[in-house]
């Protein structure tokens, strides 16, 4: 009977590649600088180098997928009318100072949003709400960056053609990566 038990277990486990058993999900948080975006005076962006985080560096070669994502932070709308914030990345490093320049960049991809903030209000994004706002193309681009050189630039902007003025504080980009050991 005992021999049969080990045979059943071995058969069951033997069907699984080792990586599936020895895998896990690691969370990496990237602090973002404070952003401002103004339809008149321009936008801020920042370049993220995933290699600056030891957790990413240590697991880059074992990275299989991105399982959970979030853009977190406190959004303040400095204008009287509501604003829909979107977050974009350029897959090559960039330093655009205007929405028009960002939109002219062929490597731009909308990553996240829109996230609405009422006029003259401050709103902290909820993690669950944030996880819903990632675009499919944005996720794919982020995964490609995570598997690639790990360098990209990120921007927050308002709706094209509309007047807006907002800022983002305590920002963070949270990536949960699937790794196979």
């Amino acid at each position: 009977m005992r021999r049969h038990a080990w045979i059943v277990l071995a058969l069951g486990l033997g069907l699984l590649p080792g990586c599936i058993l020895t895998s896990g999900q690691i969370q990496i948080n990237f602090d973002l600088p404070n952003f401002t975006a103004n339809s008149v005076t321009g936008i801020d962006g920042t370049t993220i180098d995933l290699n600056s985080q030891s957790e990413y560096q240590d697991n880059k070669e074992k990275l299989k997928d991105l399982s959970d994502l979030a853009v977190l932070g406190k959004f303040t709308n400095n204008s009287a009318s509501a604003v829909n914030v979107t977050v974009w990345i350029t897959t090559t490093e960039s330093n655009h100072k205007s929405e028009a320049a960002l939109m002219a960049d062929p490597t731009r991809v909308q990553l996240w949003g829109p996230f609405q903030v009422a006029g003259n209000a401050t709103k902290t994004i909820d993690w669950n709400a944030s996880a819903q706002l990632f675009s499919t193309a944005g996720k794919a681009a982020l995964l490609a960056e995570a598997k690639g050189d790990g360098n990209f630039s990120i921007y927050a902007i308002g709706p094209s053609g509309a007047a807006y003025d907002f800022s983002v504080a305590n920002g963070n980009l949270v990536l949960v990566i699937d790794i196979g050991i």
Partner: protein
Amino acid sequence: MMKRLVMLTVLALVLASGAAQAGPIGVGIGVFGGLSVPILQNVSASSFSPGDAFGKGGTQLGVRVPVHAIPIITFEPYYAKASYGDRDETIGGITYTREGYDSKSFGVNALLGNPDGSGFHFFPYVGLGKTKLTRTGEEINKTGYNFGFGLGMSPAQKISIQIRSEFSMVVTGDTSRKFGGINAGVSYRLLP
């Protein structure tokens, strides 16, 4: 979901019937409940401590239909639901909450021996099924594997009480979401 469970039960009966010449087929029905915890999910590698390996656990409830037709194996279609706890984390000075998964799974276990028999029984088992993990902004609907050990006893005729310790995983490409748990259940033998 009940339709799938019925189909799995029929499948188990068909699989077992070929080898059932030696004796009557035993069929039961049981319910179980327990605790399940995520393993090695959303851990921070830089500040990892052994306690971080286990996420917020949740309750698990389910139903099983043991079908015993061949001498050493009991096939057991099952359906289970679990709800995992939310996780709070402070990032950039702000505390955020990420909700835990809701899990629904169905499949078939193969148990070594017949846990519904008289006396105490120690039995290992392996299982294969389909698991759906959902939470806001994320859905995983993939093949799941499980294995575990159980201890069964029969306090009265046709009734069996079981305690099981189980490891399960949902395969997501080259990796998996893993869970560990312990549950207790009671089953009633319908046939013979």
